[in-house]
């Protein structure tokens, strides 16, 4: 009897394997557009009519986004949201290359970055208000150690090397700190918290400006050779947790979850303020004429204002190629800036003030389909 050779059997075997793995899995895998390859929250697509929204961006907002997206998915079973907190610069890059549906960055895109976006104009929506803590691990030190800009600058420049240095004793009022080497930790990747601290030090310490040679803050830490560099908030937090004598900047959402001891920083009014949802909220309330080009709320005035706070900006293309996705994005982020803000305080963030909510709403209504139809209405 004439029989075929081995190849068709092999092909049949391969086809069987493919079929066995489940056609629904494959279609969702191949059809899913994406988020990036770092930590995220995901839910399997409920049915083939569901929408999957993929985003990537700031690491600092991840705890907030995870919670809010999770709640949103429970309310809207047909929507799946994936977020990859690989860092603000990754979010910007992914949006520029149009490999994600939304991005998020602690520092809004500059006009040159927007010009490089391949999908046209980018809408930047402020969605959350957070802060940056200076967390330290010093056995025997009290919580809420008082520190100011010039002292921090000296620490991160490497000129103060021990915790019992008289300069620290002078500003903090604590003289019994141990004779322990200071290990300053910075972000090895570019980061919003790094920008915040850099801006704070530029505003408060002339020595810092002289040392880094510029008065413009940067998301890349300007002195990478001093101290230790770690990836993402999680890397910095892990290092601080395991190394006695370390001090570093961590998004307050992570710092509060890790129950770190955080420094009380000297604000513009001269008071030493610890980070909390309330003091961060005060900084946000000071934001006037907030826009993507005028976004800094570092070192705002006010007796109890925490000096290291920032808004987190979601990046969306104004012209959405997929109208259904565009509408879903509008609905999702409207939820985030309204109902979702309830999740802010318990997680170490602060609800956005009313004027910022207005800005967010005014930006979301600008979403358009490829035919020019408005995709989101209030």
């Amino acid at each position, binding site marked *: 009897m004439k029989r*075929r*050779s081995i*190849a068709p059997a092999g092909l049949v075997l391969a086809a069987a394997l493919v079929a066995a793995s489940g056609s629904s899995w494959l279609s969702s895998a191949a059809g899913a557009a994406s988020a990036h390859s770092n930590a995220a929250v995901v839910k399997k697509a409920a049915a083939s009519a569901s929408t999957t929204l993929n985003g990537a961006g700031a690491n600092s907002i991840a705890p907030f986004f995870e919670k809010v997206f999770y709640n949103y998915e429970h309310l809207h079973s047909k929507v799946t949201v994936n977020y990859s907190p*690989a*860092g603000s610069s990754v979010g910007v890059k992914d949006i520029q290359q149009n490999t994600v549906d939304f991005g998020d960055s602690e520092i809004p895109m500059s006009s040159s970055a927007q010009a490089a976006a391949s999908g046209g104009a980018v809408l930047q929506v402020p969605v959350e208000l957070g802060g940056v803590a200076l967390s330290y691990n010093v056995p025997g030190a009290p919580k809420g150690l008082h520190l100011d800009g010039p002292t921090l600058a000296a620490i991160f420049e490497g000129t103060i090397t021990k915790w019992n240095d008289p300069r620290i004793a002078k500003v903090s009022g604590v003289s019994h700190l141990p004779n322990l080497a200071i290990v300053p930790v910075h972000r*090895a990747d570019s980061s919003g918290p790094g920008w915040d601290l850099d801006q704070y030090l530029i505003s408060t310490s002339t020595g810092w400006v002289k040392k880094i040679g510029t008065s413009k803050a*940067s998301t890349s830490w300007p002195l*990478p050779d001093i101290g*230790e560099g770690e990836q993402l908030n999680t890397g910095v937090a892990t290092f601080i947790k395991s190394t006695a004598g370390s001090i570093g900047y961590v998004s307050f959402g992570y710092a509060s979850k890790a129950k770190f001891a955080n420094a009380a920083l000297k604000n513009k009014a001269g008071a030493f303020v610890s980070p909390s949802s309330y003091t961060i909220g005060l900084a946000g309330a000071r934001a006037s004429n907030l826009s993507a080009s005028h976004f800094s709320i570092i070192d705002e005035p006010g007796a109890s204002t925490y000096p290291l706070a920032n808004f987190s900006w979601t990046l969306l293309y104004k012209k959405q190629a997929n109208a259904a996705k565009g509408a879903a994005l509008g609905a999702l982020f409207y939820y985030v800036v309204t109902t979702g803000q309830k999740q802010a305080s318990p997680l170490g963030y602060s609800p956005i003030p009313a004027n910022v909510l207005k800005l967010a709403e005014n930006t979301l209504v600008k979403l358009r389909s490829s035919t020019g139809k408005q995709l989101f209405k209030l």
Partner: protein
Amino acid sequence: MTDLGASPVPEAIAGSPTPGETGDGPTGLRPWRKRRLFPSSPFYAVVRWGGAGLFAAVAIGLVVTIVSQSSQAFTHSGISFLWSGTWNPDAGEFAAGTLVVGTVLTTLVAMAIVVPVGLGISVSVSELTPRWLAGPLSTSIEFLAAVPSIVVGLWALLVLSPVFATDVEPALEGLPVLGRIFHGPAYGPSVLLASVVLAIMTLPTVVALSRTALSGVPMADREAAMALGATHWQVVRRTVLPGARSGIAAAITLAIGRALGESIAVALVIGNRPAIPHSLLAPGATLGSAIVNQFAEASPGLGTSAVIALAAVLLLLTVLVNVVGQLLVRTRGGRRVLSARGAAT
């Protein structure tokens, strides 16, 4: 990591050379003669050539893609990318020099640990332990080969690193003479820890392949030595080990190739500072760890091209080492190792 022990084919059969091994085809005739005698159907021919073509396309495509995507970085920095400069993407500095140093350093230290220990184990297992013990022992070492690299990295980061920071590294600093290379603050993640992780991961390679090489030395040679009055150890040292020399060299070379390319576990424990480490306890960076950490962030265009250029350098290094290893394997002594590499790394 994969199972590197005996070939899945039983040794009794695998040991005898078949005509195929000499490259003459199933019938032992020259290929053209055989083709005339037993032609194959067009479909079968398409299947075979299709498969070979796909394979060649993948292999060539891999090299071509890496080289072409990295060309932008090479034209930007020149050929000195390979050995000079520092890696500082934000400052626009792209050069692989320090990373190459880190890669070579971690591999060397790992080999310094693995070669003595691995040879010791393989000699023990093949020569010194009783038969009932040798089997389970070598199986358990091979099991280490099956442990995924991420699990080794996880354990090294969460269990080994704190132990290193508190006990091992201060102890090493206190060593006389040698202590000089172990100075400096020790937080755990360091070149030393990464080298130890690499050693753990490449040990099964060395043990399994050396053991095959050692057991491949013919019994007749051993018996001849014993007849001349050699003690057990002298038989091992003067007859077995030299006989297995090229197989052991092949094993070590393949282990080096593996160590050069390991990136995930190293990225977790090396501390990721792309500067030439001043001590083994300092953090460092290798080509692999830099690629892991930098790729996602790299700005499109020159940044991504620079990271791919790092991959090109790594590819060059590993291919060179692997080619040398393969050539060693194909020598007479190494041939016994060839069959053991059936599913090997």
